[in-house]
Structures are given as C-alpha cells and as structure tokens.
C-alpha cells in the first residue's frame, strides 16, 4: 500500500506539503520513546505517535519510515513543519487513537 492510499482509506489529514514522495507502507510501529522507535521501527513502517517535537524528524529519517501519523489530534508547530518539509518527511494527522489507526491499517493490509 502507498502512503496516498493509506491517507484515503483512513481519512488522514496531510499537514506537511501536499506534494510528497508516495512511499510504500508495509505496516506500522506505535511508540513515543524515541530510542524504542529507533531500535524497533522498520523501513517503510508508518510511525504512529503523540510525540510532536522536532526530534521525531531525525528518528523518521534514520529509520526510513514512510510517514509519521500523529494520533488523537496532536499537531506540530511551524518549526517542525518547515523542517519536515525541508527533509521530505510526510506528517499525517488523525483524531483517532493509535489503536484505532493500527486496527484499520491491519484490516487494509490483510
């Protein structure tokens, strides 16, 4: 599944630039502790989190995840948005919980 298909299927809001690299999504990792995410998230995972500070961007780059999904309506500030756009990191937003998002993803990826 592509990021664009995930956005459509789950009704996610794209908060970074609307033109983005449409990477493959092969699953997800849920976590807010950056070291856990660094060690466990796999390339092309969607990373579901409520962590929204600038440090999530380095983790996203290093793990080569396909996108960050901020759940429970968490947003990011302008500094994070602008750096994410500079680095080509896709940040998506949803009012749903991490469980709901992962559950829906699981259904689609079956």
């Amino acid at each position, binding site marked *: 599944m592509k990021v664009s298909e995930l956005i459509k299927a789950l009704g996610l809001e794209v908060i970074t630039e609307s033109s983005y690299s449409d990477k493959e999504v092969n699953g997800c990792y849920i976590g*807010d*502790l*950056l*070291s*856990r995410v*660094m*060690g466990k998230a796999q*390339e092309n995972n969607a990373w579901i989190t409520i*962590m929204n*500070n*600038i*440090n*999530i*961007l*380095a*983790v996203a*780059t*290093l*793990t080569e995840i396909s996108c960050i999904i901020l759940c429970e309506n968490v947003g990011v500030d302008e*500094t994070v948005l602008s750096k994410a756009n500079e680095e080509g990191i896709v940040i998506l937003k949803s009012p749903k919980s991490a469980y709901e998002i992962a559950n829906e993803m699981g259904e689609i990826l079956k």
Partner: protein
Amino acid sequence: MIKRYILSGEDFSIAGEASSSFKAVLKKLGIDAGIIRRVAIAMYEAEINTIVHGGGGECEAEIEGNKITLVFRDQGPGIPNLDLAMQEGYSTATEEIRELGFGAGMGLPNIKKYTDSMNIETEPGKGTTVTLVINL
C-alpha cells in the same frame, strides 16, 4: 575517510543531525543497508547521550578497511555506575528530557546490541569517551 561532527550540548533540536549526515555518506558509498541501519541506531543513541548526558562534545566517524569506527568524546560528568547504565530501562534523564521522548533507558543497551564492539572510558567529573566498531 574521517568525518568530524561537533555535538552542541545546548540545542536538543539538532540531536540526530550528525547521525543523519553520516548515514547519507554511507548510502553514497553503497554500504550494505543492514550495516547502515546498525550504524544509524548506534550513532544516534551515542549522539543523544553525548548531547543530553555529556553536555555536548564531538564525534569522529571513520570508515577504514573492513570497519567503521565511531568515537564520541565529552567533558561531562562521567557515568557514575556503568553496570546500571547498561541495564535496559535504567535512565538518569531529567523529567524535561523525558518529555521530549528521550530517557527510555535504551541508549547504551541499543548501542551494544547494534555494534561489534563497544568500549567506554569514563571518569567522574572529567568526561566520557565511547568507541564503537561496526565491521563491514
């Protein structure tokens, strides 16, 4: 080839930039993706430690022959109890640092897991030097 990075202890927002930059170098060199992932994880953790616990320092990353060597030096407070610091989940990070998502107590355990050798020299009040080797 040696790359040198200055790790400022005052700005957590740039934590991870040295690791990201060195990862890009390894990619350009066509290094195996699995090795790059191990280097990226270990380097990121050591970079964060140097910034958060060491108050900043420097990193030297060398690719030579059949190995990658990463040396992190800081003049911070040192690690008072290395055995405890090596335990998964043990952390001395402040509440402020934890709120940023750090302080999971996975730093040194992750580094050990993803490198072929790890050597730590630390002295209270004088600083810490961490030397990591990943074989190619």
